Structures are given as structure tokens and as C-alpha cells.
């Protein structure tokens, strides 16, 4: 009985060690022509799908704080999308939690660069807050317009190759920045969305692959002295990169804040 309890605690600890990722999901990032797209916002662990978290959970009030910023940039024009967010319940393998949905008309040609700044989330397991400033982009009809913009965010990953133009087996390169300045040797976690998100039921589907070892669930890498990193993409689908604590804000409500930068990319098979 004692052994079982220890095993359960160890499992819980191991699960908590998997990376939190702010998902900003849409099924297709490379659109041949303008169309309305669906977006889902959920705070989860995209590879293991062990635990889904309530976006914006506060430690003192136990309520959910509102998303701070959500907008899109196309051809240098910024459009606020905050008022379009509708609360949903996102269901993972083990639990369900609060997230958001919206739809967006990606009508115009070029890149539609989405930026999400959720409220800090209280992670009770670590007694800290986590805020993941997240970028994701969709392109219409192939012309590049905004994908490489440096927005000067408190925490940001600036891509050096287009996040929607990545063949399986090629690479993704980005620079981790804090208020526009590179973050040397930034710690980065990489995860694959290993469960097909179902936008009709707002739930994660079954897993695509199994990790041979826990270190493959969340792959830890580091940026170089200039904050730059490159990662080879072994499988088609969505990959998330999260630079931990890259942001300039370090405290929230008297507790430690990990202000992270997240970017999503989508790889395609050559066939």
C-alpha cells in the first residue's frame, strides 16, 4: 500500500514536470484562399494531455482573470479580437478546464499574425504564476507579409523561417527576445500536439505517437549566446516552442511569475 502511494506521488510529480503550453489552435496554417477559420485557446500539455488548466486561474479569488490581449496583424494593420472570445470548456484525457473559442475571417492575402496574452495562471504545484505570451500565424495565398515582425513583446520568439512553410524533416529557427533584446541561452521547451484537437467537441483526440522516454514528451533545448535556436522537425503537425521565463515581468500578486514566450509552427509531409 505504501509502495503504491509512493508510485502514485511519483507519477503525479512526473506528470507535473511536463510542459504547460498555451494552445492557440486552428487546423490549417497555410490557406490557399481567404476563408473563415476557427480558433481555440486552451492551456494544456499538448503531448501527454495529462492535465488541462483553467486559463487565468487566480490563487486568491479562485476566479478566472480575463485574457489581457488578443489581436491579429495583417499587412501591418492590427485588429483587436478580445471581444470575439467566447468561454468554452476544453476537455483533455483526464479533466476539463476553461478556455476560449472564436472564429476569424482570414479574408485578406498574406500573413495573419495572432498574438495572445492571457492573464497569469496560478500553478499551485509550484506556487508560481505562469503567463505565456503566444504567437501563431496563418497565411493566405502564399505571399509573406508579417510573419517575421518583431513586436517588442515582453517575451517573444521571433521566427527566422516561416512557421507555416515547414516540411517534415526540415528545421525551425527562432530568436528568443525580451522587449526586443535577445535572451542568451534561453531555456526552451518543445512539444508536439500529439492529440488531434476536435473543434466540434472542444476536446483532445487519441494520441498519435508514444514517447519512448519521458524526456521525449517535453524536449528541452537551449538557445545560443544570441538567443537563437534551431530545431529539426521530425513529424508533420503542430509543434510548440516555449521559452521559459524569457519575459521581463517576474512577479504577480506577490508570487513568482514565469513570463514565457510561445510560438506555434505547423509542418507538412512531402507527398
Amino acid at each position: 500500500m505504501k509502495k503504491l502511494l509512493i508510485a502514485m506521488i511519483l507519477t503525479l510529480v512526473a506528470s507535473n514536470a511536463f510542459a504547460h503550453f498555451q494552445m492557440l489552435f486552428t487546423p490549417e496554417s497555410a490557406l490557399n484562399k481567404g476563408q473563415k477559420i476557427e480558433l481555440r485557446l486552451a492551456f494544456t500539455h499538448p503531448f501527454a494531455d495529462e492535465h488541462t488548466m483553467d486559463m487565468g486561474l487566480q490563487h486568491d479569488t479562485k476566479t478566472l482573470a480575463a485574457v489581457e490581449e488578443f489581436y491579429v496583424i495583417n499587412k501591418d494593420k492590427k485588429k483587436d479580437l478580445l471581444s470575439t472570445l467566447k468561454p468554452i470548456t476544453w476537455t483533455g484525457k483526464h479533466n476539463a478546464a476553461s478556455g476560449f473559442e472564436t472564429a476569424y475571417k482570414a479574408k485578406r492575402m498574406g500573413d495573419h499574425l495572432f498574438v495572445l496574452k492571457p492573464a497569469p495562471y496560478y500553478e499551485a504545484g509550484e506556487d508560481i504564476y505562469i503567463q505565456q505570451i503566444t504567437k501563431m500565424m496563418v497565411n493566405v495565398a502564399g505571399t509573406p507579409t508579417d510573419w517575421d515582425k518583431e513586436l517588442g513583446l515582453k517575451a517573444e520568439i521571433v521566427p527566422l523561417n516561416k512557421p507555416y512553410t515547414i516540411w517534415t524533416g526540415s528545421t525551425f529557427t527562432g530568436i528568443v527576445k525580451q522587449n526586443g533584446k535577445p535572451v542568451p541561452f534561453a531555456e526552451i521547451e518543445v512539444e508536439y500536439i500529439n492529440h488531434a484537437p476536435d473543434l466540434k467537441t472542444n476536446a483532445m483526440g487519441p494520441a498519435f505517437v508514444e514517447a519512448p522516454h519521458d524526456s521525449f514528451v517535453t524536449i528541452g533545448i537551449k538557445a545560443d549566446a544570441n538567443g537563437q535556436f534551431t530545431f529539426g522537425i521530425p513529424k508533420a503537425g503542430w509543434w510548440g516552442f516555449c521559452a521559459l521565463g524569457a519575459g521581463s515581468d517576474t512577479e504577480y500578486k506577490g508570487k513568482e511569475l514565469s513570463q514565457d514566450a510561445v510560438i506555434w509552427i505547423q509542418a507538412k509531409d512531402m507527398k
Partner: protein
Amino acid sequence: MKKITLLTVSLLMLLISTASAHTALMSCFDEGDGTITCEGGFSDGSSASGVEFYIEHKGNVILKTKMNEYSEVNFKKPEGDYQAVFNAGEGHRVYIDGKDIVE
């Protein structure tokens, strides 16, 4: 003289490689107010401002204009079948059928 020839050849090669490296692109949508907007561009992100654009309707060119400073053109939706053509030169033309242009 030799230097000038070499320079000319180098410049020509540069021009050729620049011209062939990018792809002409166009996307059109129905504004829902009886007009169509077409946006032009290139795969290298360069502007399509000033590039020729025309509408073919029953074998006739019924509108010939140039992409504006924002690399786009807005025109009254023609009746029936038509084609929107982005003409950035030989090998750089894009055709879109009117029936594929939706809101």
C-alpha cells in the same frame, strides 16, 4: 572593356535569378457589396503596386488597370463567367475564375 562586360553579365545574371526566384500570387474575394477585391503579391514579399491587372469576360478584356499602392484592385462584379488576371509578365501571370471568388 572586359571589366564592363563581366559587370554586365553579372548584373544580368542577378536580374535573371531575381526574376525567376519568386512566384506571382493573387487572391480575390467578394466584398458582398457588388464589388470584388483582388490582392496581388509575390512569394518574396515584394509589392505588386503598379502591376497590370485585367478582367476577361466572354473573350474580351473589359477592364484593364494596375494594382494600387496597397497591391490591390477593387472592381464592380461582372455578370456571368469572368476571369481576373494578374499580369506580372511572362511566366508570372495568375488567373482566377470568377466562380471561385466568394465572400
